[in-house]
């Protein structure tokens, strides 16, 4: 294996990226709206399960230190089968990144820019992601570090502002578990577990580049718990300020909740702050998926991914628009089709299939090298 110029990101950067990744599109579309006022419980359950899932991903990575998801797939399935599965993953990552991008474009075009062509939004956004990835993973991590304080404080502040505006009504959260746990569990699996938590499977491409790999598992699990907590916080805000009925009706719950803010007769109409939080979250999310796809292509085609950044990202910008004809189709795909046929196989089934194979192969390799060593 040739020595490449290895780029590293720190544990803190990994945590930051994971956090923004998690809350990114959740802030746009909201989660758990089907479970009404119990959405936050559903998120809580999903968070715990999600943390387990992430621990499992890092556990897999630990078996082969320093190799990313695609290298691991090739290791397990051999060259040709590995390439095919790798390509499927590339397809999955790029498709999801286009979807995430589309989420944001829908938000912008339906809330702020009614006349601006959606293409412009999509191209500019994906352009930023491409520029960032072109400059490398380190730059990506550092950009996250610069923005995380703002993202975090804005989210907290929005909650506080709603609270002080008097729009926060705890009674909207009642009754707790009126219909029992059944509907919640049904919602948690597969939808809530796979989105947003299962999507962390992409980080199997990034985690190998963390400088203190040994601690990555702890940090990732912890980050997932923290971000789950923030999502719960956001969901509680949404339910308490909008009420379960309205939350079901609105397309962008957090944005609608922020519209209720009115402080001192002057701090009102601050909903664009949400757009900022969302925008950075989306950039992170698109970039992570894009990076995953590009790394896969790099592995399969043996071309440095920097050559591919701009063409692939432009394609994604285009796909994001072509992916569905209208918003309804876009949302329906996200609810019915994607979790079942994309999320579950790529996030759960393939990794689980891979696990015994991986452990067995690693053991075999070890035995062989031990034998070589003793000889």
């Amino acid at each position, binding site marked *: 294996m040739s020595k490449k110029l290895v780029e590293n990101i*720190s544990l*803190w*950067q990994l945590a930051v990226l994971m956090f923004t990744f998690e809350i990114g599109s959740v802030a746009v579309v909201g989660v758990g709206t089907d479970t009404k006022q119990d959405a936050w419980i559903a998120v809580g359950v999903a968070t715990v399960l999600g943390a387990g899932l992430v621990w499992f991903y890092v556990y897999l990575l630990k078996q082969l230190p320093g190799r990313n998801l695609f290298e691991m797939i090739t290791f397990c399935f051999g060259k040709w089968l590995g390439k095919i599965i790798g390509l499927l993953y590339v397809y999955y990552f790029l498709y999801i990144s286009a979807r995430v991008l589309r989420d944001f474009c829908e938000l*912008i075009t339906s809330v*702020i*820019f009614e006349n*601006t062509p959606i293409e412009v*939004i999509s191209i*500019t956004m994906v352009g*930023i992601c491409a*520029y*960032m990835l072109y*400059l*490398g993973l380190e*730059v990506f*991590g*550092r*950009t996250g*570090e*610069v*923005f995380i304080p703002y993202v975090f404080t804005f989210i907290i502040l929005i909650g506080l502002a709603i609270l002080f505006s008097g729009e926060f009504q705890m009674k909207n959260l009642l009754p707790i578990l009126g219909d029992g746990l059944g509907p919640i569990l049904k919602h948690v699996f597969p939808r809530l577990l796979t989105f947003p938590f299962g999507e962390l499977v992409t980080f199997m491409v990034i985690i190998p580049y963390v400088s203190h790999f040994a601690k990555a598992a702890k940090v990732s699990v912890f980050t997932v718990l923290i971000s789950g907590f923030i999502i719960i916080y956001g969901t509680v805000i949404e339910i308490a300020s909008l009420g379960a009925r309205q939350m079901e009706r609105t397309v962008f719950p957090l944005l609608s909740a922020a519209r209720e803010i009115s402080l001192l*007769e*002057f701090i*009102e*109409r*601050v*909903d*664009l702050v949400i*757009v*900022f939080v969302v*925008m*950075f979250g989306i*950039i992170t999310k698109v970039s992570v998926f894009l990076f995953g796809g590009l790394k896969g292509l790099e592995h399969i085609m043996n071309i440095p991914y920097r050559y591919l950044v701009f063409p692939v990202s432009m394609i994604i910008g285009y796909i994001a628009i072509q992916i569905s004809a209208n918003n309804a189709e876009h949302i329906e795909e996200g609810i019915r089709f994607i979790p079942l046929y994309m999320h579950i196989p790529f996030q759960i089934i393939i990794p689980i299939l891979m696990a015994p194979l991986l452990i067995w192969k690693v053991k075999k390799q070890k035995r062989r090298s031990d034998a070589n060593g003793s000889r």
Partner: protein
Amino acid sequence: MGLADFLFNRRKHKNNNKITAEELFQQENISKKYYKSLDKNIKQIQELFEHSFDFTVDKIKLGDTDACVCYLGTMLSKDTLTNKVLNSLHPQNDHPKPKDINSIRDNYFPTVSYEYADTFHTVVWNVLNGYAVIMVDGQGKALSLEIGNIEKRAITEPSTQTIIRGPKEAFTEDINTNISLIRKRIRNPHLKFESFYVGRDTKTHLVIGYMSTITNADILEEVKKRIEKIDIGGVLDSGNIEELISDKSFTPFPLIFNTERPDSICGHIMEGKVALILDGSPFVLTVPSVLTDFFESSEDYYQPFLMSSFVRLIRYMSFMIALVLPSLYVALSTFHQELMPTQLLLSIQAQREGVPFPAVIEIFVMELTFEIMREAGVRMPRAVGQTVSIVGALVIGQAAVEAGLVSNVLVIIVAFTAIASFVSPIYNFSISTRLLRFILILFSAIFGLYGVLLFLIVMVIHLVSLRSFGVPYLAAVAPFNIKEQDDIFVRFPIWANRKRPSYLYPESPMKKKGKNIPSPPPARGGGK
């Protein structure tokens, strides 16, 4: 009784804490021994002052005995040195053969004030203080002669970086004066000054100064490499050097810090940076620099820390204001009217009634006018300065509003932006905001707030990708380091700030060992 005890104890306490120069040197592992053998002494002192171009050892003969004169050329007046010391040591001068160091002094330098140095520490200390030290073979002590200060061009107050409290000296165009200004503040043999000559035709003297015990060797190596690579006909100011050695030219942000304040340079050197002093330029550069350096004024360290923290936050805020305020106005007034409170919107709309230009053009024209006025203000003869401010403020500002060409709000915004852009302590940095502001206005005119955000994100991506001599430009923020936060956005008290910035990878990371928090003596009256 109690009070007297308090005062007495306090004074005693103070005395105990006093560190003499010699103790200081002991900490730095400098040997104390002064040898009788001249060669050993010379070797010793030359090792210590290695890489300092201004350190000179002149070997002479006193009759048959070997002797030498050592001094720092930048710390004393060379004329006096020649007249008083070197001339009288000239072999042609008829002096009786010296027997010991006392008779040497009596015979050769009866009129020069002197001191004997019987330890090596004292020798080094005297050299650093601008003495010429004469070491004679076979003698147990050295003779230090006080020569007197360098002839300087009058040192003036800094003109670009003024402060209220703190030293009011500025660098001059003379390199020796500048070095002595630094040497005066850091009396340490480990402060090195290495000399280079740059410019194929001009052969300008360029000196790099650093602390050999602090500065990271790799960074130093990189600086030297880049200076050696300079290939140009002539350099006239350190600004030329800045462009020739910086990591990236296609960026509006200055990657190299410059200042005309010696105290500020000393602070940087003590953190482990390298100073570049060019002959003929009163602006001294330091590398590597990070973004946050440009928000720090040396006065921050002279004023109480709470106040300076507040002021520092104000600086960051005004940077943001100077950058985005005009574009926010454009975005809010032409794209997002719904985001303004109703009353505010009504009064802004009322003021804009009858203004014939779109908001973008309006603000572009006013910002340009302001830039022109600023440039004119810098270039024109001092005598007409008053005129320009009157013309600017009254004629352009007020008349334009009254004629209904621009709105009142806009004039307020342009004025506020302009003032905010002057807050940055380093002029170079405010230039970058001026430039970016125009691009930002353009973006906000196309995409509204979305455009502003787009641009800011691209700007941040650009910023984090920058490096200054291998150090990330946003170091301590990204990559984030919690331990560095004591001197970034706020300043902790000096006693709490014990570490040198880790992004510079200093050879000795701690500034000091103890915590020595100031506190009153333990008990009053009672006890001992």
